């Protein structure tokens, strides 16, 4: 009974306008996922873009791992309020509370993955466009200090899967991360 209802709803949404509530619900259903990424960062101070690639892993509700494998190994593990960054021999642990800007930045991805609209709304004004199979979530930072660093974040995806994350920084720098589903 429930299954049929969902199937019918699913068919209807195929073409219909896709709401934020629905996106968040869809995201919240994913309890864990892993993927690979390639990222390009275009910075005014560099002559060529910074390229990197690696893996991403998410476990609901609060754990997010980004392991950069190229060009240099670096791991970034976010768990609750704790952010652990390890590169080479150095390991740093920071509390997000202490760095509101980093917090806002990581929350753009984590809250989206977790379908946590409340947290997302706390840091960003958001607009959703597109359809179920091809949606774009645009995030504008609320905090003025954050605005001085990041002007907008655009996340695009399909169903409960993020495909690209584009971060636009103040002054014209920007980065694009492409995510492709892999592994499990």
């Amino acid at each position: 009974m429930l299954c049929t209802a969902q199937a019918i709803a699913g068919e209807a949404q195929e073409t219909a306008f896709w709401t934020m509530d629905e996106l968040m619900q869809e995201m919240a259903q994913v309890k864990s996922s892993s993927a690979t990424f390639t990222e390009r960062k275009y910075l005014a101070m560099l002559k060529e873009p910074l390229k990197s690639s690696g893996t991403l892993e998410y476990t609901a509700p609060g754990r997010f791992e980004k392991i950069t494998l190229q060009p240099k190994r670096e791991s970034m593990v976010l768990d609750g309020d704790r952010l652990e960054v390890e590169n080479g021999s150095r390991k740093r642990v920071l509390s997000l509370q202490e760095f509101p800007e980093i917090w806002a930045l990581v929350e753009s991805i984590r809250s989206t993955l977790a379908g946590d609209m409340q947290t997302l709304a706390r840091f960003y004004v958001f607009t959703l466009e597109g359809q179920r199979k091809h949606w774009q979530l645009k995030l504008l930072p609320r905090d003025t200090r954050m605005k001085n660093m990041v002007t907008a974040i655009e996340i695009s995806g399909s169903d409960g899967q993020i495909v690209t994350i584009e971060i636009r920084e103040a002054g014209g720098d920007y980065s694009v991360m492409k995510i492709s589903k892999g592994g499990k």
Partner: protein
Amino acid sequence: MKGLKARWPVAVWLLFVGICILLVSRIQIGADLNAFLPATPTPAQRLLTEQLRDGMVSRLILVGIEGGTATHRAAASRELAHRLRDEPDFLIVNNGETGSLDRDQAFLVDNRYLLSSAVTPERFTPEGLRSSLENALQLLGSPAGAMVKGIIPRDPSGEVLHLLEGMSGQSQPHTEEGVWMSRENPRALLILQTAAAGYDIDAQQQAVAIINKRFAEVVQSAGVAELQLRLSGPGVFSVEARDNIESISFNFSIITALLVSGLMLLVYRSWAVLAISLLPVVSGALAGIAAVSMGYGVVFGATLGFGITLIGEAVDYAIYFFTHLSPGRPASQALEKIWPTIRLGVLTTICGFAPMLLADFPGLAQLGLFSVVGLIVAVMVARWVLPNLVFAGFAPVAPTMLGSRVIALIAKAPRLRPLLLIALVAALVSIALHRGPVWSEQLASLFPLSVEKQQLDQSMRDDLGAPDVRYLIVASSRERDAVIELSEALGAQLDQMVGDALLTGYDTPARYLPSLKTQQARQAALPEEAELRASLRQALVGLPFRDDLFEPFLQQVAAARSQPLLTPESMRGTNAGLQTESLLARYDDGWRAMLPLRGVTDPDTIRKTFERADGSVVLLDMKTESDALYDSYVREAVALSIIGVLAIFILLFISLRSVRRVATVLLPLAAAVVITLAILLAGGQQLLLFHLVGMLLAVAIGTNYALFFDRESNAEKHDEDTRLTMVSLLVANVSTVMAFGMLALSGVPVLTSIGLTVALGAFLSLLFSAVLMGDRVAR
């Protein structure tokens, strides 16, 4: 002429009281804390004393803003902080706003080449720069990249980041709406550090008043009336305790005076008696305070608190006098017959309290001086001044009427002997079986706070991540710069220990103010511009950084080479300067640097590593040290009390010249003390100094009773005076029990302890004197 001659004691007394009033009106009331810090401390105690008196911990004021919505509280926190930052009374005003950090960051950026411990010649070689640049590149690729990219052209070697990392590890309070907020309670939080030392209660009071005033302005301009201010911290408590002791001393004096007056009126039926019955007490109290103020400069609040208890014994003298007035003899001879006994009673009390004068703790010494002077003056007023103030022929009627009834009661008292024996045995057994500490073991117990205040303080400290410094490394040296060099050496070792997880972090004055030597060495490590440019060019080969990107770096290093060195003077007024100031202090014998440690897990290893024989570096464990201090202070109080008791023994032997009589005098007192003690312990109380003082006072009062019983039971014949004496003892006892019973109900822990002990002890002393000696008195 004769009349005038007879009244000279009144004239002397008036003059004396006048002088006392003059002195008392100018007394300075000191913080109680000082009362309990030794005059000749050990080095560790001295450091502890300094910290408790004027260390940064003593200057801490925690501010909570409650009520209203979170937005209201955040706005009020910002506005209050803004107003307080303009007040010179506060060194540090922190509410978690990022604005206050910006200033710190500007200081770090401007002085990074003097402050960063990573500044060495190797760092600016092509290899050193290459490694820095690679790190910078990686950082740019990370989520933190957006935060740091602004500074990279100026600081590719990452000195600012290095400095910021050294400061992390401090757990930050929870932030909401841009300011610190409690997680558990609807409360915005601020931390203030006063410019004045914690022991300076007047200044602390002023600071508290300023906070209240500014807060009232904030509330008014915001128009949110439901916001409330909560304050906590050592200074705040001292101010409150002083106000409390002052107001309670005052109220208690009034209430007691009224009660005792009522009793006097009831017994003596004379307004004249009423008017002058309190003169010995008042004169004694004035003289006592005046003596302390002259001898010590300041009078501690606690001394005043104890002082009011003098009423207990001094009022008795007036009672003895009035009871013995009879129509047949002149007033001046009323006390003649019993004078030797009264005198012995006073001497006994003096013996009991005088050893306190030798105390190393000024609080105890003041108490001794106060009691001795107060009692002597009170008894002299009763003996020589009162007779000149009653009109001729006055004699109270009631005592005579009461006399035979009292004697009848006393005659029956010895029947209670078996009961006394049982009670005594039961008390001894109960004390022997008592579990748990008899004496309270914490210094804090000297300044008992209400449970509500303690909880508020703890809750705010928890909210703020406990700036509750327990471990502190104190480094001393003659010169300021030498003590900073010492701090740098300690810092290097501490960094190692942080790595080994012996602690999580520490503060040091050298963080913002490196020694001149170190600053010079860092400056010397910076290469000349041409050399740096060449090295940088070499380091940049193959890296994607734009050409000319690091022009600001080259310029700023060049400027830093001739930058003026940091001094406390040049830092004055900046946040960093204020924090440095709070960790660096000048004392008579030189300079001290304080390095508060955070998250200590292995104090023993740290102690072993740092402790130096010459005392120039000490790991101070504030808790253990202060408990030890309290312990030594309790031991001194007990030892001096024992000396006092021994002195009383000797005095009684000399006066009574009979072992049997000394024993009969002391037996009821001993029984009273033992049973009182058993009752207090059984009631779940931990003994404080205040109980000891109460016990001494009860013994002093009780000795008078026992001595009178002894006198009458050894008298050849019993007459009207015997009866009057017994009546006077009863009246005196009722007044004492009434007065101290009131004190026991005051609700202030200190006064409750004293009140309970004295009321109980004095009553039992009289009862047991009657039980043990009544048959011989009433024969």
